Every structure is written in structure tokens, then in C-alpha cells.
């Protein structure tokens, strides 16, 4: 099952379009769009489930910016499937409808207030929500120091309804230095400001303890671009897929351990 997310942050507006059909054309007219976010009642945290506030037609749900709450996520489910929902622990496989190959994706659009937008076909597979680990992502791949605005929107969905703080680093891999250290949160759509001096070929974003999807946003003030980076495992197919990436991440971890933030 896939979750979907907006790219709405303090700096950007967003819109999500979620199809009622799979990419091989199977349509489910009874499917509903739900939203979840972490909520708190009397000190107890839980997943607050609602029918999403969305426009809909025969083929699509559309969630406009004004209807998107902070740190809200979405998924599709039928009436009988939603009975699988648990407000204490976000479960995998609530619905089978979005279990497809290729992946079932929404169109997540990000836009500046003056109109230009950029979008990408986005999804957050439920196999990620129970995982803890680290993310390594190249900063130089999708940003440009020629543009005025460069940001990373880091999306995390974790199964427990917690807003847990975790560290991220900007690492110079070749010089083995930490350029910046900061904190982001679980079950959040985090916005990281990127200093243009970080946009270099050997610099990487590294997160500790939690995984997620980094979406890179670059704008000259008139137009905008956004795209996510692949997990490094996508570059390798075969026996060494996970070992090669593990070794690389261990090297990054060593850099973090032997350096202190300046």
C-alpha cells in the first residue's frame, strides 16, 4: 500500500492529485481518500483519521492547498478495508488497491504564489513506515547554486504516532567533514534551507535513525523545479545491492562520528 503526501511547507503551496485507478486502468468507484496525521489528546498521541477534504470527479481526488493541513498524509481504502486501521500504530497493507507494479503514485505539485509549479509522481510505500535507518542523498544532483532558493523537503512517515526529533547532516564526503548539522521530525514534512555553498559534487545529506524521502526544490523566484532522489540501492541490481550501499553509509557514519559540528 502506498501513502501520499503534499509538499506544503512554510515556503511553498501544494496540491495533490490522486487517481481512483491503477496505472493499468482498474478503477474503483467505491474507493475513498483518507487523511491521517499525528494528534494529541490529554497527552496521548494517536493517528487522527479522517475522510480527506478533497474535490473529486469520476477519476481523481484533488486536494487543494487550502485543504492541506500541516504534516498530513493520505491513502486510499474501501469501506471494509478501513476497518483495518489502528490509531495506535499505522499498519502496512490497510488496503491492497495501491499495491501495484509500477508503483501507484499521486501527482504532488509544488508551486510559488505567482503560479509556476513543478510536480513529481510521488508515493511513500508502506514498507518504509516500519523501518528505521539512515538516508544518504546527493545534494549536488538536483539543486543549483545559480538559483536563489534551494531547499530539501524531507518527508518521513513512521508507524508510531510520534513526533520524534532526529539529526540530519550535510557531509563533505571527499574532505570527510560535517558542513552542517540540524534536526528534523518524524511524521512530518520537514523543510531544510540549503546554503548555496553546500551545493557541491561531493556533498551529501545524511539522516540518522529514521528514513524518508528527500525532495529537492530549486527556484529562481520565477520558476521552480522539484524532484526526489533515489535511494542508493536503486543504482545496483544483484547480490551486492545492499552490501555496497551499507559500506558507503558506514563510511558516512564514520565521518559523522569523528567530526564534531563546527
Amino acid at each position, binding site marked *: 500500500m502506498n501513502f501520499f503526501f503534499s509538499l506544503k511547507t512554510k515556503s511553498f503551496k501544494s496540491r495533490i492529485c490522486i487517481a481512483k485507478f491503477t496505472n493499468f486502468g482498474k478503477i474503483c468507484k467505491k474507493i475513498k481518500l483518507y487523511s491521517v496525521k499525528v494528534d494529541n489528546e490529554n497527552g496521548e498521541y494517536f493517528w487522527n483519521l479522517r475522510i480527506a477534504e478533497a474535490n473529486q470527479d469520476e477519476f481523481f481526488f484533488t486536494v487543494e492547498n487550502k485543504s492541506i493541513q500541516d504534516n498530513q498524509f493520505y491513502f486510499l481504502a474501501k469501506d471494509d478495508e478501513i476497518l483495518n486501521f489502528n490509531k495506535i500504530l499505522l499498519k502496512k497493507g490497510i488496503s491492497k488497491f495501491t499495491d501495484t507494479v509500477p508503483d501507484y503514485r499521486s501527482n504532488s505539485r509544488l508551486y510559488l504564489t505567482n503560479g509556476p509549479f513543478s510536480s513529481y509522481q510521488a508515493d511513500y510505500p508502506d514498507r518504509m513506515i516500519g523501518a528505521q535507518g539512515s538516508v544518504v542523498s*546527493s545534494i*549536488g544532483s538536483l539543486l543549483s547554486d545559480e538559483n536563489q532558493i534551494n531547499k530539501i523537503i524531507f518527508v518521513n512517515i513512521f508507524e508510531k504516532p510520534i513526533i520524534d526529533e532526529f539529526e540530519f547532516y550535510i557531509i563533505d564526503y571527499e574532505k570527510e567533514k560535517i558542513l552542517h548539522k540540524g534536526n528534523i521530525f518524524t511524521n512530518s514534512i520537514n523543510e531544510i534551507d540549503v546554503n548555496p555553498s553546500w551545493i557541491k559534487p561531493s556533498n551529501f545529506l545524511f539522516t540518522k535513525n529514521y528514513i524518508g524521502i528527500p525532495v529537492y526544490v530549486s527556484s529562481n523566484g520565477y520558476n521552480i523545479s522539484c*524532484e526526489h*532522489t*533515489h535511494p542508493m540501492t536503486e543504482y545496483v*541490481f544483484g547480490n551486492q545491492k545492499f552490501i555496497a550501499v551499507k559500506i558507503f553509509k558506514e563510511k558516512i557514519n564514520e565521518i559523522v562520528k569523528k567530526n564534531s559540528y563546527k
Partner: protein
Amino acid sequence: MKLLKKIATNNFVLKIRNTINFKRVPVFLNEENNNQSISDAFPWRTDNGFKTKFKFTDILKLLFSEEGSELEIKFFDHKYNEIKSIILKNFNLTDSLIITKDFLSYEGYGVFFVFHRKDKNLNISSSINNRCYIGFSISNDVYSYAHGNTFVLGKSINSKIDKTKKNFVHKSFLVNQKYFIQNNFLDSEKIELFFANPLSKKINIAINNNCSFALNPYNSKIISIFENTHLIKIRSDCTFLRPYVFNYRGSFIDFHHS
């Protein structure tokens, strides 16, 4: 069991399975592809004011600590005529290449392939897949990016072995492989779909039941779809055909894979 698996993944049997939608295998990679550098058919455009930017990672250095590797990049026009071939050396860990009509001495569009290579056997029990990023800019504006989409051609990482592997994606006997783009295009002024045939065989494509065409091996084609298109439905006899989308609104474009 091994024999059964061999039969079940035989090309002819895969074609039957994909045609009748029985345990479809749209893309097939196995250990025979080890030590290969596998590339997508990345789109490029230099027509109508377009510039293309390819952003790539030195995968052999980053993940296998191999210094001094090269990048072979081969450019083809939309009819798969080779336009240019280059070998990049001494590049950064992540680097980029800007493709303009001056660079190619060609105004138009087509595909290019990227192969990582070294001058020796590395004995990697895996393949390297280049799924790097392609961006498009019109009138010198911000580049809009998408990542690589599929697996089209493979070459040995050992540059002394000049053998190309192909057809990781498959065909079906009928034009019944459906792909519906999961996006609503009603507010678009114009959409262009960039198709690239990932196979060494001709494929047939139909869009929304009112536009159909054939595409020769590794050929590419841009189809324009104008406003008031709600839904884009693609049928073909290719098991994994996902066009790239150029979505125009005013003076800017949003480029993404479908």
C-alpha cells in the same frame, strides 16, 4: 526447479504470460546481467529553445571505491541514427553535462545512453543501473528534472568487452498492455508525451483510442496533446512503456516521468 524457472522465464513464455496477464513480468533482470552497466534511454531535446541537462553520479567510485572510471555516452536522433559519442573522464563524484544544439550540432530530439566503464574486469556480482537525472530548460529558465525510468541497454563494465545486452523490458503478442497516467491534465495548456521504444523490436502504441502509431527499435516520438485532456490512457504491446511528460503552462514547463 531450475529447469522450470528457465522455462518460465524464457522469452517466448514471458511473452505469453504478459499477453494473457498471468504473473506478468514487465522487466526481467537476472544474474546474467552481472558486471553490466545498464542505461535508460534518456530523452534529450534541443528543439524550440530547449536545453537538456544530464546530472549523474560516479556510481563505481561511490559504491565500489573504483577510481578512474569512465562514462561512455552515445546520442541518437529520434530515428536512432547515432549523432555523437563521447567518453567522459576525470569527472566529479556527481557531475553534469549540458546538451545544446551547439553541443550536438543538431536541433531536434532523441535519446542517449550512459554506460559506466573501466578498462578491466571488476568482478561485481551485480549490475550498475544508471537512474540519474535529466532536466529540461526552455529559454534559459530553471531546469525541471525527472529521474531515469527503466532499463534499456546494457554493456559490460569492462570497456574491452564490446557487447550490448538488450530487451530487459518485454513485448506481448497483442496491443493490450495498458498504462494510465495517474495525473489530471485538465488545467494544462499543452502536454507533450515523450515516448522512447526500449526494445530492439518495433512496438505499437495507442493513446486515448484516437492516436496510434508504431515506433521502430529505440526510436523516439513526441506526441502533443492539447488542453481539455482529463485522462491519458496508453495501450501498447510493450510491457513497460512510461512516457515522459512535458506539461506547459504559460511560459514555463513542468517535466516529470509519468
